Protein backbone atom coordinates (compact mmCIF):
# COMPACT_ATOMS: atom_id res chain seq x y z
CA UNK A 1 0.00 0.00 0.00
CA UNK A 2 2.95 2.34 0.57
CA UNK A 3 3.80 1.87 -3.12
CA UNK A 4 0.16 2.57 -4.04
CA UNK A 5 0.24 5.84 -2.14
CA UNK A 6 3.49 6.89 -3.83
CA UNK A 7 2.00 6.06 -7.22
CA UNK A 8 -1.07 8.16 -6.35
CA UNK A 9 1.12 11.22 -5.89
CA UNK A 10 3.49 10.51 -8.78
CA UNK A 11 0.49 10.35 -11.12
CA UNK A 12 -0.60 13.76 -9.87
CA UNK A 13 2.83 15.32 -10.17
CA UNK A 14 3.31 15.77 -6.42
CA UNK A 15 6.98 15.49 -5.46
CA UNK A 16 8.12 13.31 -2.58
CA UNK A 17 10.30 14.93 0.09
CA UNK A 18 11.96 13.45 3.12
CA UNK A 19 12.44 16.16 5.75
CA UNK A 20 14.23 15.41 9.05
CA UNK A 21 12.34 13.54 11.77
CA UNK A 22 14.60 15.08 14.38
CA UNK A 23 14.62 18.84 14.82
CA UNK A 24 16.09 21.45 17.13
CA UNK A 25 12.65 22.89 17.78
CA UNK A 26 9.29 21.29 18.31
CA UNK A 27 5.87 21.63 16.75
CA UNK A 28 3.65 23.33 19.34
CA UNK A 29 0.13 22.01 19.88
CA UNK A 30 -1.90 22.29 23.06
CA UNK A 31 -2.83 18.62 23.04
CA UNK A 32 0.04 16.90 21.25
CA UNK A 33 3.05 15.81 23.29
CA UNK A 34 6.48 15.92 21.70
CA UNK A 35 9.25 13.43 22.42
CA UNK A 36 12.51 15.03 23.40
CA UNK A 37 15.85 13.43 22.55
CA UNK A 38 18.75 14.19 24.85
CA UNK A 39 22.20 14.24 23.31
CA UNK A 40 25.32 13.32 25.22
CA UNK A 41 26.65 16.88 24.81
CA UNK A 42 23.64 18.39 26.58
CA UNK A 43 21.69 19.48 23.48
CA UNK A 44 18.03 18.60 23.17
CA UNK A 45 16.36 17.52 19.95
CA UNK A 46 12.70 16.85 19.26
CA UNK A 47 11.09 14.15 17.16
CA UNK A 48 8.50 15.68 14.87
CA UNK A 49 4.78 15.10 15.36
CA UNK A 50 4.20 15.92 11.68
CA UNK A 51 6.52 17.15 8.90
CA UNK A 52 4.46 20.36 8.62
CA UNK A 53 7.00 23.02 9.63
CA UNK A 54 9.81 21.57 7.57
CA UNK A 55 7.67 21.16 4.45
CA UNK A 56 6.32 24.69 4.81
CA UNK A 57 9.87 26.00 5.01
CA UNK A 58 10.64 24.21 1.76
CA UNK A 59 7.50 25.70 0.20
CA UNK A 60 8.65 29.24 0.95
CA UNK A 61 11.71 28.72 -1.26
CA UNK A 62 10.24 26.25 -3.72
CA UNK A 63 6.47 26.59 -4.08
CA UNK A 64 5.56 23.28 -5.70
CA UNK A 65 3.25 20.43 -4.65
CA UNK A 66 5.01 18.23 -2.08
CA UNK A 67 4.24 15.12 -0.07
CA UNK A 68 5.95 13.14 2.65
CA UNK A 69 5.26 9.62 3.81
CA UNK A 70 6.67 9.98 7.24
CA UNK A 71 6.97 8.27 10.57
CA UNK A 72 5.84 10.71 13.26
CA UNK A 73 6.04 10.52 17.05
CA UNK A 74 3.54 11.49 19.72
CA UNK A 75 4.16 10.76 23.34
CA UNK A 76 1.60 8.97 25.47
CA UNK A 77 -0.67 7.97 22.61
CA UNK A 78 -1.31 4.27 23.04
CA UNK A 79 -4.64 2.59 22.35
CA UNK A 80 -6.54 0.57 19.78
CA UNK A 81 -6.30 3.54 17.39
CA UNK A 82 -3.01 5.00 18.61
CA UNK A 83 0.65 4.05 18.58
CA UNK A 84 3.31 6.54 19.72
CA UNK A 85 5.09 6.12 16.37
CA UNK A 86 2.92 6.00 13.28
CA UNK A 87 2.99 6.74 9.57
CA UNK A 88 1.53 9.92 8.24
CA UNK A 89 0.76 10.84 4.65
CA UNK A 90 1.06 14.59 4.49
CA UNK A 91 0.81 16.68 1.34
CA UNK A 92 0.54 20.28 0.20
CA UNK A 93 -1.16 21.62 -2.91
CA UNK A 94 -0.39 25.08 -4.26
CA UNK A 95 -3.40 27.24 -5.14
CA UNK A 96 -5.88 24.46 -4.32
CA UNK A 97 -9.16 25.38 -2.65
CA UNK A 98 -9.90 23.46 0.54
CA UNK A 99 -12.79 21.78 -1.25
CA UNK A 100 -10.54 20.58 -4.05
CA UNK A 101 -8.09 19.15 -1.52
CA UNK A 102 -10.92 17.48 0.35
CA UNK A 103 -11.96 15.72 -2.84
CA UNK A 104 -8.40 14.62 -3.52
CA UNK A 105 -8.15 13.27 0.04
CA UNK A 106 -11.30 11.24 -0.50
CA UNK A 107 -9.69 9.80 -3.65
CA UNK A 108 -6.66 8.77 -1.60
CA UNK A 109 -8.93 7.16 0.99
CA UNK A 110 -10.62 5.27 -1.82
CA UNK A 111 -7.32 3.52 -2.51
CA UNK A 112 -7.96 1.76 0.79
CA UNK A 113 -11.75 1.78 0.98
CA UNK A 114 -13.18 1.09 -2.42
CA UNK A 115 -16.53 2.44 -3.50
CA UNK A 116 -17.17 4.66 -0.52
CA UNK A 117 -18.96 7.92 -1.08
CA UNK A 118 -18.16 10.90 1.10
CA UNK A 119 -20.79 12.99 2.79
CA UNK A 120 -19.85 16.60 3.61
CA UNK A 121 -21.18 18.55 6.58
CA UNK A 122 -20.15 21.68 8.48
CA UNK A 123 -19.10 21.36 12.12
CA UNK A 124 -22.06 23.55 13.03
CA UNK A 125 -24.60 21.39 11.17
CA UNK A 126 -23.02 18.26 12.61
CA UNK A 127 -23.62 19.49 16.17
CA UNK A 128 -27.07 20.81 15.34
CA UNK A 129 -28.02 17.44 13.82
CA UNK A 130 -26.54 15.11 16.42
CA UNK A 131 -26.59 17.13 19.63
CA UNK A 132 -29.11 19.87 18.88
CA UNK A 133 -26.73 22.58 20.01
CA UNK A 134 -25.06 25.39 18.01
CA UNK A 135 -21.35 24.94 18.83
CA UNK A 136 -20.65 28.57 17.89
CA UNK A 137 -23.19 29.99 20.32
CA UNK A 138 -23.14 27.81 23.39
CA UNK A 139 -21.72 27.79 26.90
CA UNK A 140 -20.04 25.25 29.12
CA UNK A 141 -23.20 25.22 31.29
CA UNK A 142 -25.49 24.43 28.36
CA UNK A 143 -23.19 21.63 27.17
CA UNK A 144 -22.94 20.20 30.67
CA UNK A 145 -26.73 20.22 31.01
CA UNK A 146 -27.09 18.55 27.62
CA UNK A 147 -24.58 15.88 28.63
CA UNK A 148 -26.61 15.18 31.75
CA UNK A 149 -29.86 14.77 29.81
CA UNK A 150 -28.04 12.40 27.43
CA UNK A 151 -26.66 10.49 30.44
CA UNK A 152 -23.07 11.21 29.46
CA UNK A 153 -20.30 11.63 31.98
CA UNK A 154 -18.26 14.79 32.18
CA UNK A 155 -17.08 17.39 34.60
CA UNK A 156 -18.57 20.77 35.51
CA UNK A 157 -15.02 22.22 35.44
CA UNK A 158 -14.63 21.79 31.68
CA UNK A 159 -14.56 24.70 29.26
CA UNK A 160 -16.54 24.93 26.01
CA UNK A 161 -13.77 23.44 23.86
CA UNK A 162 -13.28 20.46 26.16
CA UNK A 163 -17.03 19.83 26.02
CA UNK A 164 -17.07 20.11 22.23
CA UNK A 165 -14.21 17.59 21.97
CA UNK A 166 -16.03 15.39 24.46
CA UNK A 167 -19.29 15.39 22.50
CA UNK A 168 -17.36 14.78 19.30
CA UNK A 169 -15.42 11.80 20.72
CA UNK A 170 -18.08 10.13 22.82
CA UNK A 171 -21.39 11.07 21.30
CA UNK A 172 -21.06 12.04 17.64
CA UNK A 173 -18.21 9.83 16.39
CA UNK A 174 -19.77 6.57 17.61
CA UNK A 175 -22.90 7.47 15.63
CA UNK A 176 -21.12 8.34 12.40
CA UNK A 177 -21.59 5.88 9.58
CA UNK A 178 -19.62 5.70 6.36
CA UNK A 179 -17.24 8.36 5.16
CA UNK A 180 -17.99 11.83 6.51
CA UNK A 181 -16.03 15.04 5.97
CA UNK A 182 -16.60 17.69 8.61
CA UNK A 183 -15.47 21.23 7.74
CA UNK A 184 -15.64 24.85 8.97
CA UNK A 185 -14.52 24.38 12.59
CA UNK A 186 -14.74 26.83 15.50
CA UNK A 187 -11.76 29.20 15.42
CA UNK A 188 -10.64 27.88 18.82
CA UNK A 189 -9.81 24.63 17.02
CA UNK A 190 -8.05 26.33 14.11
CA UNK A 191 -4.52 24.99 14.74
CA UNK A 192 -2.59 26.23 11.69
CA UNK A 193 -5.55 26.95 9.43
CA UNK A 194 -6.94 30.24 8.14
CA UNK A 195 -9.81 31.79 9.99
CA UNK A 196 -12.54 33.60 8.09
CA UNK A 197 -15.71 35.40 9.13
CA UNK A 198 -18.98 33.66 8.42
CA UNK A 199 -21.75 35.92 9.61
CA UNK A 200 -21.04 36.73 13.25
CA UNK A 201 -18.74 33.72 13.75
CA UNK A 202 -15.06 33.12 13.18
CA UNK A 203 -14.71 29.87 11.25
CA UNK A 204 -11.51 27.87 10.78
CA UNK A 205 -10.92 26.67 7.23
CA UNK A 206 -10.15 23.06 7.91
CA UNK A 207 -11.71 19.66 7.49
CA UNK A 208 -11.56 16.29 9.18
CA UNK A 209 -12.57 13.06 7.51
CA UNK A 210 -14.03 10.17 9.45
CA UNK A 211 -14.90 6.62 8.50
CA UNK A 212 -17.34 4.98 10.90
CA UNK A 213 -16.35 7.61 13.42
CA UNK A 214 -12.60 6.96 13.10
CA UNK A 215 -10.61 10.08 12.30
CA UNK A 216 -8.59 9.55 9.13
CA UNK A 217 -7.46 12.91 7.82
CA UNK A 218 -7.07 16.50 8.84
CA UNK A 219 -6.88 19.20 6.14
CA UNK A 220 -6.14 22.91 6.32
CA UNK A 221 -6.27 26.00 4.23
CA UNK A 222 -2.87 26.98 5.50
CA UNK A 223 -2.22 30.07 7.53
CA UNK A 224 0.46 32.14 5.73
CA UNK A 225 0.59 35.25 7.91
CA UNK A 226 3.69 35.07 10.09
CA UNK A 227 2.39 37.59 12.65
CA UNK A 228 -0.86 35.66 13.09
CA UNK A 229 1.22 32.50 13.31
CA UNK A 230 3.35 33.99 16.09
CA UNK A 231 0.20 34.97 18.00
CA UNK A 232 -1.13 31.41 17.75
CA UNK A 233 2.20 30.03 18.99
CA UNK A 234 2.10 32.40 21.96
CA UNK A 235 -1.52 31.47 22.72
CA UNK A 236 -0.76 27.77 22.54
CA UNK A 237 2.32 28.26 24.68
CA UNK A 238 0.20 30.05 27.31
CA UNK A 239 -2.40 27.27 27.25
CA UNK A 240 0.32 24.66 27.69
CA UNK A 241 1.76 26.65 30.58
CA UNK A 242 -1.67 26.70 32.25
CA UNK A 243 -1.88 22.93 31.88
CA UNK A 244 1.58 22.51 33.42
CA UNK A 245 2.88 20.94 30.24
CA UNK A 246 6.53 21.06 29.22
CA UNK A 247 7.39 24.32 27.48
CA UNK A 248 8.74 23.99 23.98
CA UNK A 249 10.97 26.35 22.04
CA UNK A 250 9.23 28.31 19.27
CA UNK A 251 10.58 27.58 15.80
CA UNK A 252 11.92 31.04 14.86
CA UNK A 253 13.29 29.82 11.54
CA UNK A 254 9.83 28.63 10.58
CA UNK A 255 8.37 32.05 11.43
CA UNK A 256 11.14 33.76 9.45
CA UNK A 257 10.35 31.57 6.46
CA UNK A 258 6.66 32.53 6.69
CA UNK A 259 7.74 36.17 6.60
CA UNK A 260 9.48 35.56 3.27
CA UNK A 261 6.18 34.17 2.13
CA UNK A 262 4.34 30.88 2.08
CA UNK A 263 2.31 30.59 -1.12
CA UNK A 264 -1.45 30.25 -0.84
CA UNK A 265 -1.86 26.51 -0.33
CA UNK A 266 -3.84 23.75 1.31
CA UNK A 267 -2.32 20.86 3.21
CA UNK A 268 -3.62 17.64 4.67
CA UNK A 269 -2.35 14.80 6.85
CA UNK A 270 -3.85 11.31 6.76
CA UNK A 271 -3.08 8.38 9.05
CA UNK A 272 -1.63 5.59 6.91
CA UNK A 273 -1.93 2.89 9.59
CA UNK A 274 -5.59 3.66 10.27
CA UNK A 275 -6.36 3.48 6.56
CA UNK A 276 -4.65 0.11 6.48
CA UNK A 277 -6.66 -0.98 9.52
CA UNK A 278 -9.90 -0.17 7.76
CA UNK A 279 -8.80 -1.86 4.55
CA UNK A 280 -7.88 -5.02 6.48
CA UNK A 281 -10.87 -4.69 8.85
CA UNK A 282 -8.41 -4.89 11.77
CA UNK A 283 -9.66 -4.20 15.29
CA UNK A 284 -6.48 -2.55 16.49
CA UNK A 285 -3.64 -0.52 15.01
CA UNK A 286 -1.33 -3.21 16.42
CA UNK A 287 -2.66 -5.65 13.87
CA UNK A 288 -1.32 -3.65 10.93
CA UNK A 289 1.97 -2.42 12.38
CA UNK A 290 5.07 -4.55 11.73
CA UNK A 291 5.82 -4.18 15.45
CA UNK A 292 3.71 -2.02 17.73
CA UNK A 293 4.98 -0.23 20.82
CA UNK A 294 3.65 -3.08 23.00
CA UNK A 295 5.51 -5.62 20.84
CA UNK A 296 8.86 -3.88 21.29
Amino acid at each position, binding site marked *: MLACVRQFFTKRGVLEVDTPLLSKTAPIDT*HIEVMAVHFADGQTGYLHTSPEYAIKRLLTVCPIDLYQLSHVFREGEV*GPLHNPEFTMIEWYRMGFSLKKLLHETVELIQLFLENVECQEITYRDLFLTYVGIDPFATSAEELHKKAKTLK*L*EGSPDWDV*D*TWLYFFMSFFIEPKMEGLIAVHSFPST*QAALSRVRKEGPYAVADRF*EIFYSGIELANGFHELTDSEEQRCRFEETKAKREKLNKPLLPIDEKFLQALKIGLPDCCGVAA*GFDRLLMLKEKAGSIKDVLPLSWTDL
Partner: protein
Amino acid sequence: MAQVSTNEFRAGIKVEVEGQPYTIVSNEFVKPGKGQPFNRVKLKHLMTGRVIERTFKSGDRLELSDVVETKVRLLYTDQDGASFMDDNTFDQLHVSFDIIGDQKQWLLEEVSYTLIFYKGAPVEVIPPTFMEMNITETAPGVRGDTSGRVLKPATTESGAKVPVPIFVEEGDRIKVDTRTGEYVSRV
Protein backbone atom coordinates in the same frame (compact mmCIF):
# COMPACT_ATOMS: atom_id res chain seq x y z
CA MET B 1 -2.94 9.69 50.17
CA ALA B 2 -0.90 9.80 47.00
CA GLN B 3 -2.45 10.57 43.64
CA VAL B 4 -2.29 8.87 40.26
CA SER B 5 -2.61 10.42 36.82
CA THR B 6 -4.86 8.97 34.08
CA ASN B 7 -1.85 7.73 32.15
CA GLU B 8 -0.79 5.62 35.14
CA PHE B 9 -4.24 4.04 35.44
CA ARG B 10 -3.93 0.26 35.19
CA ALA B 11 -6.42 -2.47 35.86
CA GLY B 12 -6.38 -3.28 39.56
CA ILE B 13 -5.33 0.14 40.86
CA LYS B 14 -7.67 1.34 43.59
CA VAL B 15 -8.80 4.96 43.51
CA GLU B 16 -11.30 7.26 45.21
CA VAL B 17 -14.19 8.56 43.12
CA GLU B 18 -16.65 10.84 44.88
CA GLY B 19 -15.38 9.60 48.23
CA GLN B 20 -15.86 5.92 47.39
CA PRO B 21 -13.24 3.25 46.73
CA TYR B 22 -13.14 1.79 43.22
CA THR B 23 -10.91 -0.68 41.43
CA ILE B 24 -9.94 0.28 37.88
CA VAL B 25 -11.23 -2.33 35.44
CA SER B 26 -10.16 -0.76 32.16
CA ASN B 27 -8.78 2.49 30.82
CA GLU B 28 -9.39 3.50 27.22
CA PHE B 29 -7.45 6.33 25.57
CA VAL B 30 -9.54 8.48 23.24
CA LYS B 31 -7.99 11.34 21.33
CA PRO B 32 -8.97 13.52 18.42
CA GLY B 33 -5.83 14.23 16.34
CA LYS B 34 -5.63 17.90 17.26
CA GLY B 35 -7.92 17.91 20.24
CA GLN B 36 -8.30 17.26 23.93
CA PRO B 37 -7.38 13.68 24.85
CA PHE B 38 -9.66 11.79 27.22
CA ASN B 39 -9.47 8.61 29.23
CA ARG B 40 -12.67 6.64 29.55
CA VAL B 41 -12.31 4.53 32.65
CA LYS B 42 -14.39 1.62 33.90
CA LEU B 43 -14.38 1.31 37.67
CA LYS B 44 -15.79 -1.31 39.99
CA HIS B 45 -16.92 -0.38 43.46
CA LEU B 46 -14.75 -2.17 45.98
CA MET B 47 -17.64 -3.25 48.22
CA THR B 48 -20.81 -3.30 46.12
CA GLY B 49 -19.17 -4.47 42.89
CA ARG B 50 -21.19 -1.90 40.92
CA VAL B 51 -19.41 -0.93 37.71
CA ILE B 52 -19.42 2.70 36.65
CA GLU B 53 -17.85 4.57 33.75
CA ARG B 54 -16.15 7.95 34.07
CA THR B 55 -14.46 10.14 31.50
CA PHE B 56 -11.43 12.17 32.51
CA LYS B 57 -9.29 14.66 30.63
CA SER B 58 -5.93 12.94 30.13
CA GLY B 59 -3.59 14.06 32.85
CA ASP B 60 -6.34 14.45 35.47
CA ARG B 61 -5.43 12.95 38.80
CA LEU B 62 -7.31 10.84 41.33
CA GLU B 63 -6.58 10.02 44.94
CA LEU B 64 -5.41 6.49 45.58
CA SER B 65 -7.73 4.61 47.92
CA ASP B 66 -6.50 3.70 51.36
CA VAL B 67 -6.68 0.00 50.61
CA VAL B 68 -4.50 -2.66 52.20
CA GLU B 69 -4.39 -6.36 51.35
CA THR B 70 -3.45 -8.90 53.99
CA LYS B 71 -2.96 -12.65 53.80
CA VAL B 72 -5.06 -14.38 56.45
CA ARG B 73 -5.90 -17.96 57.41
CA LEU B 74 -9.39 -19.07 58.43
CA LEU B 75 -9.50 -20.32 62.03
CA TYR B 76 -13.21 -21.05 62.43
CA THR B 77 -16.66 -19.78 61.55
CA ASP B 78 -19.47 -19.07 64.00
CA GLN B 79 -23.05 -17.85 63.71
CA ASP B 80 -22.32 -14.32 62.56
CA GLY B 81 -18.98 -14.49 60.88
CA ALA B 82 -15.55 -15.92 60.46
CA SER B 83 -12.36 -15.58 62.48
CA PHE B 84 -9.09 -15.22 60.64
CA MET B 85 -5.47 -15.05 61.69
CA ASP B 86 -3.08 -12.63 60.03
CA ASP B 87 -0.24 -14.67 58.48
CA ASN B 88 2.38 -12.12 59.45
CA THR B 89 1.32 -10.64 62.77
CA PHE B 90 -0.69 -13.67 64.04
CA ASP B 91 -3.40 -11.17 65.07
CA GLN B 92 -6.89 -12.61 65.13
CA LEU B 93 -9.79 -10.76 63.55
CA HIS B 94 -13.48 -11.45 63.21
CA VAL B 95 -15.26 -10.58 59.96
CA SER B 96 -19.05 -10.65 59.81
CA PHE B 97 -20.93 -12.58 57.12
CA ASP B 98 -22.46 -9.27 55.96
CA ILE B 99 -19.03 -8.30 54.69
CA ILE B 100 -18.05 -11.75 53.48
CA GLY B 101 -21.24 -12.02 51.40
CA ASP B 102 -21.25 -14.67 48.66
CA GLN B 103 -17.68 -15.67 49.41
CA LYS B 104 -19.02 -17.46 52.50
CA GLN B 105 -19.48 -20.55 50.33
CA TRP B 106 -15.68 -20.83 49.87
CA LEU B 107 -14.72 -20.71 53.55
CA LEU B 108 -12.62 -23.66 54.73
CA GLU B 109 -10.46 -23.83 57.83
CA GLU B 110 -6.71 -23.52 57.39
CA VAL B 111 -7.06 -22.07 53.89
CA SER B 112 -5.27 -18.79 53.17
CA TYR B 113 -7.45 -15.88 51.98
CA THR B 114 -6.79 -12.31 50.94
CA LEU B 115 -8.51 -9.85 53.24
CA ILE B 116 -9.01 -6.32 51.91
CA PHE B 117 -9.11 -3.37 54.29
CA TYR B 118 -10.47 0.04 53.31
CA LYS B 119 -9.55 2.86 55.70
CA GLY B 120 -8.60 0.26 58.27
CA ALA B 121 -11.84 -1.78 58.19
CA PRO B 122 -12.20 -5.17 56.46
CA VAL B 123 -14.42 -4.93 53.37
CA GLU B 124 -13.80 -8.03 51.30
CA VAL B 125 -12.53 -11.59 51.56
CA ILE B 126 -11.04 -13.06 48.39
CA PRO B 127 -10.57 -16.84 48.26
CA PRO B 128 -7.71 -18.47 46.31
CA THR B 129 -8.63 -18.69 42.60
CA PHE B 130 -8.51 -22.48 42.71
CA MET B 131 -9.52 -24.45 45.78
CA GLU B 132 -9.62 -28.16 46.52
CA MET B 133 -12.56 -29.54 48.50
CA ASN B 134 -14.53 -32.69 49.20
CA ILE B 135 -17.95 -33.47 47.79
CA THR B 136 -20.37 -34.01 50.67
CA GLU B 137 -23.54 -34.52 48.74
CA THR B 138 -24.39 -35.60 45.20
CA ALA B 139 -26.65 -38.13 43.48
CA PRO B 140 -24.95 -41.45 42.57
CA GLY B 141 -23.36 -41.46 39.12
CA VAL B 142 -24.85 -43.24 36.15
CA ARG B 143 -22.48 -45.65 34.51
CA GLY B 144 -21.57 -45.18 30.92
CA ASP B 145 -21.16 -41.44 30.62
CA THR B 146 -17.55 -40.56 31.35
CA SER B 147 -17.23 -37.71 28.86
CA GLY B 148 -17.59 -35.10 31.60
CA ARG B 149 -19.95 -33.09 29.45
CA VAL B 150 -23.07 -33.94 31.41
CA LEU B 151 -23.22 -32.24 34.81
CA LYS B 152 -25.20 -32.93 37.97
CA PRO B 153 -25.63 -30.82 41.12
CA ALA B 154 -23.27 -31.35 44.05
CA THR B 155 -22.53 -29.70 47.38
CA THR B 156 -19.01 -29.34 48.81
CA GLU B 157 -17.81 -29.37 52.40
CA SER B 158 -17.73 -25.55 52.38
CA GLY B 159 -21.39 -25.44 51.39
CA ALA B 160 -20.78 -24.35 47.77
CA LYS B 161 -23.08 -25.71 45.08
CA VAL B 162 -20.87 -26.83 42.21
CA PRO B 163 -22.19 -28.69 39.15
CA VAL B 164 -19.92 -31.72 38.60
CA PRO B 165 -19.61 -34.40 35.90
CA ILE B 166 -21.70 -37.55 36.32
CA PHE B 167 -18.68 -39.69 37.33
CA VAL B 168 -17.88 -37.62 40.44
CA GLU B 169 -19.04 -39.36 43.63
CA GLU B 170 -19.68 -38.31 47.22
CA GLY B 171 -16.38 -38.14 49.10
CA ASP B 172 -14.35 -37.32 45.97
CA ARG B 173 -11.98 -34.39 46.16
CA ILE B 174 -12.35 -31.80 43.38
CA LYS B 175 -10.68 -28.61 42.22
CA VAL B 176 -12.99 -25.58 41.81
CA ASP B 177 -12.52 -22.18 40.17
CA THR B 178 -13.85 -19.80 42.84
CA ARG B 179 -14.27 -16.90 40.36
CA THR B 180 -16.90 -18.76 38.36
CA GLY B 181 -17.90 -21.52 40.79
CA GLU B 182 -17.08 -24.11 38.11
CA TYR B 183 -15.67 -27.61 38.50
CA VAL B 184 -12.13 -27.89 37.14
CA SER B 185 -10.99 -31.45 37.78
CA ARG B 186 -10.98 -34.39 40.16
CA VAL B 187 -7.98 -34.46 42.48
